[in-house]
């Protein structure tokens, strides 16, 4: 594995996103949503301004779970298939770089761009919290931002995998949308349906494992446990055993969700 080759590809991908103002645009979207939720999140209850970290994180999690996977999938779906379709892949591979290095370089460059946008976008809220709230709130908020970065990396990894498996940009975009639908909209509904149909008996012990199979749910769990009053706000997740709801356990699960699709992508791209 040649690090300088990976760095060259990653650098190009990152600078492409900076130059195209992609990072700036996504940063502004995240910052606008974060600040809007931070100030007007409790407007329905007749209050404006910062109302505490727990309702803020609950609202941001709901927003992030829809928005961030979609952005990551759009960012990564044509990573490899786009190079192939444009006709630049053969030229790249004629250089002293192998397919795994190319894939890793592209992933890391895009992940860096996504991380910058996520940190800068949510960082706007972090500055307000730093000024207005106690240190513990800021710690909680930092945890949320880190988990959001991990969520972005997971869906970027899934997008790169779709890009390696598909033969055209059109099919890769279709697969990316299907991934978003499945994990963000459909998976929990299916799980809930199965739970209701079986009366909970058949799925009881399997349930935590089934939740681990959806990175969006892992992200949710990472952010709701701890503050007890949020426990009941997330339906399905309230049955998740608290002993597993630790960052030390869930962090590696998220990392596995990053590594596994990338591994599949590398295997497919190398064939």
């Amino acid at each position, binding site marked *: 594995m040649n690090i300088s080759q990976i760095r060259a590809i990653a650098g*190009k991908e990152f600078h492409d996103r900076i130059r195209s103002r992609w990072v700036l645009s996504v940063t502004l979207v995240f910052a606008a949503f974060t600040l809007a939720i931070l100030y007007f999140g409790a407007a329905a209850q007749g209050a404006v301004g910062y109302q505490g970290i727990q309702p803020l994180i609950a609202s941001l999690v709901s927003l992030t779970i829809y928005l961030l996977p979609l952005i990551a999938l759009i960012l990564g779906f044509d990573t490899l298939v786009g190079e192939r379709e444009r006709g630049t892949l053969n030229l790249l591979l004629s250089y*002293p770089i192998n397919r795994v290095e190319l894939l890793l370089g592209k992933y890391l460059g895009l992940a860096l761009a996504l991380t910058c946008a996520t940190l800068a976008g949510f960082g706007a809220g972090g500055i307000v919290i730093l000024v207005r709230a106690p240190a513990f709130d800021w710690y909680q908020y930092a945890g949320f931002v880190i988990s959001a970065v991990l969520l972005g990396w997971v869906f970027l990894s899934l997008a790169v995998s779709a890009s390696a498996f598909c033969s055209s940009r059109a099919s890769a975009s279709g697969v990316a949308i299907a991934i978003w639908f499945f994990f963000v909209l459909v998976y929990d509904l299916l799980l809930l349906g199965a739970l209701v149909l079986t009366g909970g008996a058949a799925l009881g012990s399997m349930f935590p494992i089934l939740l681990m199979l959806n990175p969006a749910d892992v992200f949710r769990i990472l952010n709701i446990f701890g503050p007890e009053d949020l426990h009941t706000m997330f339906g399905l997740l309230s049955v998740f055993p608290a002993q597993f709801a630790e960052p030390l356990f869930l962090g590696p699960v998220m990392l596995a969700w990053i590594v596994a699709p990338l591994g599949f992508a590398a295997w497919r791209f190398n064939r």
Partner: protein
Amino acid sequence: MIELTSVCRTYGPLRAVDGVDLKIRKGELFGLIGRNGAGKSTLFQLMLGLIAADAGQVRIDGVPVNGPGFRAVKRTLGYLPENVVLYDNLSGIETMQFFARLKGVGASDCDRLLDQVGLGHASGRKVREYSKGMKQRLGFAQALLGNPRLLFLDEPTNGLDPEGIREFYQILKAHQQEGTTIVITSHILAEIQQRVDRLAIIRSGKIQAVGSVQALRGEMNLPLTIEVVSRDDDTSELEAAMRRLPIGELTVLGRHVEAQCPRDAKMSVLAALSSMSDRIADLQIQEPSLEDVFLGYTGGRA
């Protein structure tokens, strides 16, 4: 040296490359010619290790292209794909710097090479603003990064104007004189026939013939073309005299009378024509073109 031994590559039922044996010598300018779909680009991809052979082996300087040692060889080769596509959002100099990083070459070469291919004035412009010819020049410049010992150029003069083509071959000649091995494809046969040391004619994935243009002409034993220019507007007497010679059918265009002459009859035909010098203003003998040789070997089909 590039060595292909019994190389096969299929795409479904199509045998794109079919049992190719070929040796390209160090320092030679070697042409690959064949019609569209004959297997030239697949052969290029096999030689560059971009695709794997189903059977047989490709070695460059003794190193298998699918082996771990090929990465080091890749540092010493340059490749210009057919209809090169580069990154539209980068400028010319940024494109060169990106590829220089990938090759592990210092960025100092980039400006020099852009100047050499005539893009020094446009190095700061985005590739999306380049004309087709400028993109081709940039593609050529990236292939020259790191002073390669091996150059693979697939239809390199596509989109170049006549001056660009002349400059391109001047640069190529300079590299060949430094010992670079060059493999080139072109569909403009007249352009490469004077420049390549040897060439291979490919048809349906198979090598039909390998050798110098002269040797292939000889092998095919194609007739020469004799063109006679009459002194008078009335060519009937000259035509009648020429019809008695062992040559093919006459083609008359104004004062020009043209016919195909078998090689072994060349001297007797010339002697007969010299006896008609009072009726002949000029005479030219043309060797068969590479296109004639090519059509002879491919039977007019890919």
